[in-house]
């Protein structure tokens, strides 16, 4: 296993107390796979990726747990050691291609900088050549000329390609992609997803794809982790998950997407209510207030994540290893 997150808990200090954004989270990313982490805003999916990269804001900290990269705990690394790993072994691309590039530097300078930081011996000419190669690899037309551009001269899709080129320039083992297509138009989203897929093949890397869009997951992922309120509610192979979603939340999410194939004019299925306030979590299952199949026990006790068939599910409906009707 390339990356293993064990019992990760991340907390944020806010005005009225402490918010546990990620609660006792465990999952792993295998070599060469695309793992999707799905959840709505406030589910803790982005905080998970920031915890891995050590990029939490000042009021946040990892309270407990381990993040093992090839068996080594990233949380125990010094800042210098982390800096060597970031970009070289683990890279990240962000949602907002508009703000994640520095507007005052040319595209080539930004990519070259990341190459030179991790390969101090490389000379500038070689780095530039590598930069242009990377831009060509990610499908930027006439890369020699575009390398001279400033970020504002490029469209959103192009910028996201530049971000990917930058992230892949040191051939990382793991790419964390945090909502890489959310800010893009559908036709550009299709291009970027295709590119991620190709790059995975080409560089033999693993991808941790963080998204709220189940369509993107179905399109791109090998395995899926569904998060709700900082916890995993279900995880399974992508085909198994979409074929037989088990947790009522996963099921609800899938049903509430308007489908192209659907011809009926009935109201869309909807999950009632909204994500609970992290400062006032319900006592039992965090989803209990919104769940169609909520039972008495759900309001009193928190369910455990347990294996059910080829899924991992956190729900009392599957207490006996199969669905209670």
């Amino acid at each position, binding site marked *: 296993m390339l990356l293993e997150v064990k019992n990760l808990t991340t907390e944020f200090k*806010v*005005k*009225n107390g402490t918010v546990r954004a990620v609660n006792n989270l465990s999952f792993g990313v295998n070599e060469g796979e695309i793992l999707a982490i799905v959840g709505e805003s406030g589910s803790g999916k982005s905080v998970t990726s920031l915890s891995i990269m050590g990029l939490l804001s000042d009021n946040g900290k990892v309270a407990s747990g381990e993040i093992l990269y090839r068996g080594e705990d990233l949380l125990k690394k010094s800042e210098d050691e982390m800096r060597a790993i970031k970009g070289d072994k683990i890279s990240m691309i962000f949602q907002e291609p508009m703000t994640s590039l520095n507007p005052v530097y040319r595209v080539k300078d930004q990519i070259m900088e990341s190459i030179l930081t991790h390969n101090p011996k490389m000379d500038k000419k070689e780095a530039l050549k590598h930069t242009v190669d990377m831009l060509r690899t990610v499908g930027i037309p006439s890369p020699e000329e575009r390398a001279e551009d400033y970020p504002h001269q490029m469209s959103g899709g192009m910028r996201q390609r530049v971000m990917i080129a930058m992230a892949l320039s040191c051939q990382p083992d793991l790419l964390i992609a945090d909502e890489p297509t959310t800010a893009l138009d559908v036709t550009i989203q299709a291009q970027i997803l295709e590119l991620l897929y190709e790059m995975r093949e080409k560089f033999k890397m693993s991808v941790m794809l963080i998204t709220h869009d189940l369509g993107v997951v179905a399109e791109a992922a090998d395995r899926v982790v569904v998060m709700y309120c900082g916890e995993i509610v279900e995880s399974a192979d992508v085909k198994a998950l979409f074929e037989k979603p088990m947790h009522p939340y996963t099921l609800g999410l899938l049903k509430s997407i308007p489908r192209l194939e659907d011809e009926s004019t009935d109201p869309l299925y*909807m999950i*009632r*209510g*909204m*994500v*609970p*306030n992290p*400062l*006032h979590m*319900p006592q039992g299952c965090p989803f209990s*207030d*919104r769940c169609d199949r909520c039972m008495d026990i759900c309001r009193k006790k928190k369910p455990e994540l347990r294996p059910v068939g080829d899924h991992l599910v956190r729900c009392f409906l599957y207490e006996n290893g199969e669905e209670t009707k």
Partner: protein
Amino acid sequence: MEENKEIAETSSITVGLEEKPESIWKSVWDSLKKNKAAMISLVFIIILVLVAVITAIFPGVLPHDPYEQNLAKSFAFPNAQYWFGTDQLGRDIFSRILVGTRVSLSVGVIAVAVSLTCGVLLGSIAGYLGGKVDTIIMRLMDIMLSIPSILLAIAFMAALGQGIDKAIIAISLVSIPEYARIVRGEILSVKQNDYVQAAKVIGDKNSRIVFHHVLPNVMSSIIVRATLGISSAILDASALGFLGLGVQPPMAEWGDMLGRARNYILSAPYAMIFPGLAISLSVLAFNLLGDGLRDALDPKSRQN
């Protein structure tokens, strides 16, 4: 419809219906209370205001008559009778500083009020209407800004003549462009907000949009700017006084006291130190309060 009502009830978890709605100003006050420097400054400013009001109504509370000259006692070193010593004409410096509070504060407040009103008006018109009106107003402001403000104030004073009222007019005039620019900038950014567009869509008139939707949302930066503006007005007034352009003698004014004592800096430093301290401390207090307000009014610090 039934389904939707259900949502309303469950969603109260997030809002927390049990709590009373909190007004924005109360939360600003709560967050200001936590800022020690701002609170000390606020207390100091309240004391200044009290001193100014009380000495105006009951001149009897002053230890000495601030205008009574006694050349025999000139340049007395600070002692139990004359806490801050006496000046070149033998007047009690402490009493004069207390009386001078009124002048400095009123110059600060009135000048800011006048320039703020004009500046907000001009800035709102320029920012909201845009186009040619904007260009004309703002170029005029640019021209005024290109001349050093104190020089401009001196020029105004030269034209208007001496006196505290004229000093106020001069200081107000020179600070108009600054307010106009800030207000215009803020309005330009607030104007882009969807809620201003929404007000247009429901058919609000321009005047209502400006006074109801735009200005309240630029209020916080105006308040901060005004607080800081009082300190610079006090400073400007002192500078004019120092140059002998402010108050008519024998009126007491901090800058004027400082200016007249400067020839005796070596023999009687206290005659300069105390008025100087009065100026510095009040300017500092207004600046710290302004900074505190800026933090407290920042909506980011209010939300969880």
